[in-house]
């Protein structure tokens, strides 16, 4: 039996142990219907145990960002892609959890596409708020929105897993958080209706669907309502970006993860005057984007996040 079976009979599907991933990209595998992170792209262990479906998560590329926190966000994306291409086993596909560009300029989307396409992976995108900054809010939809519903939500199936891509970054309300809106929530309810409760579900979107830190807008106002339609499923994994750091939480059958950025780190909630880009010493930047180990203790609802820098 696998390691996860060893834990206990009650909540093995609720627990993902020894999760490890990084800003460069997260490698996931589906084994026995439960998504497991295989570790940081580029780590030796990521090349092992790759039975079943594996997929990659990229997030928050912010192509075009050139401020002190990282003067070359396109360069660090290129480094991430090089590590993806060095994987012993090629992932089946990738998801990108938004903020592809920094300012929604066509040139930034062009650059992002040029670099990410070098992975030769099918990439399933959801938008971040930085991807809807052009006046007509059309560039994202023209490039990535074909075949999607509304402002860009959709679902697909792979290896028996049902993937749901959500958009919680448009039509935001004053004083509020991320927002899905009634139309998208109604679609979600329909989308999962009639599916077997044993179908593993992976939901991905940009802003965390759970409330991380409302003071900084890190949450989704109607996220709980959306997740209520997923409570009957045995395994639900929610993958987000936006906060440029790893966080993880388990609530019932739902496991929440946020990925790191390939561009720049952001501060932990409340540890800085604002959630703006965190400037770290140059030699530290790639370490910040490199590795984070997250360990989940069984039957523990709280996050246990351990940073393990790639170097030093």
């Amino acid at each position, binding site marked *: 039996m696998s390691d996860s079976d060893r834990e206990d009979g009650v909540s093995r599907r609720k627990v993902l142990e020894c999760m490890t991933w990084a800003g460069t990209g997260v490698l996931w595998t589906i084994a026995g219907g439960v998504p497991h992170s295989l570790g940081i792209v580029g780590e030796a262990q990521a090349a092992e145990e790759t039975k079943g479906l594996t997929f990659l998560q990229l997030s928050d590329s912010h192509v075009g960002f050139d*401020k*002190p*926190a990282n003067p070359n966000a396109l360069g660090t994306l290129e480094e991430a892609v090089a590590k993806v291409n060095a994987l012993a086993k090629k992932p089946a596909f990738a998801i990108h959890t938004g903020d592809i560009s*920094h*300012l*929604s300029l066509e040139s930034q989307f062009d650059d992002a596409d040029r670099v990410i396409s070098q992975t030769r992976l099918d990439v399933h995108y959801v938008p971040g*708020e*930085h991807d809807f*900054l052009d*006046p007509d809010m059309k560039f994202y939809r023209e490039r990535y929105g074909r075949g999607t519903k509304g402002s860009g939500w959709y679902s697909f199936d792979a290896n028996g897993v049902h993937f749901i891509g959500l958009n919680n970054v448009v039509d*935001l*309300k*004053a*004083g*509020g*958080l991320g927002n899905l809106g009634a139309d998208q929530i109604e679609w979600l309810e329909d989308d999962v209706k009639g599916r077997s409760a044993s179908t593993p579900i992976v939901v991905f979107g940009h802003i965390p669907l759970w409330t991380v830190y*409302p*003071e*900084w*807008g890190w949450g989704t106002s109607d996220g709980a309502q959306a997740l209520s339609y997923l409570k009957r499923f045995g395994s639900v994994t929610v993958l987000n970006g936006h906060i440029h750091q790893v966080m993880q939480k388990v609530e019932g059958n739902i496991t929440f993860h946020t990925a790191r950025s390939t561009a720049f780190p952001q501060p932990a909630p409340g540890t800085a*005057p*604002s*959630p*703006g*880009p965190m400037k770290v010493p140059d030699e530290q930047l790639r370490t910040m984007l490199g590795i984070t180990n997250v360990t989940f203790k069984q039957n523990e609802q709280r996050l246990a996040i351990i940073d393990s820098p790639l170097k030093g």
Partner: protein
Amino acid sequence: MTLSSTARSALVAAVLGAATATMLAAVVLPVRAQNAAPAGAVSIDNFTFNPTPLTVKAGTTVTWTNKDDIPHGIASSTNAFPKSRALDTDQSFSFTFTTPGTYQYFCYVHPHMVGTIVVEASTGSNATQ
């Protein structure tokens, strides 16, 4: 310490002169300000609007300037004025408030950022129209 009579007189004159200049400036500057279009400024720092609320007279052009490393966007909470384009670092957006009232606004990129402009009627002794 001793100071000659002459030197003391010169010092007193200098201080008086400076004081007079200051008073003149205090009197003259508001008049000059009335001749130009009244202006108000809101700085966006660390994901906050400063100052907020900002109280201005009707007819004032308010300019928001983004001092963060992340883009922000200005939108009226009640669609009372057109939204700005996305403001990159050091970019600005201006709107002239002609009608008295209280205007709530927010950052449409980071909607937890909210602010208020209070526009007062341009009446009283300082009125120019």
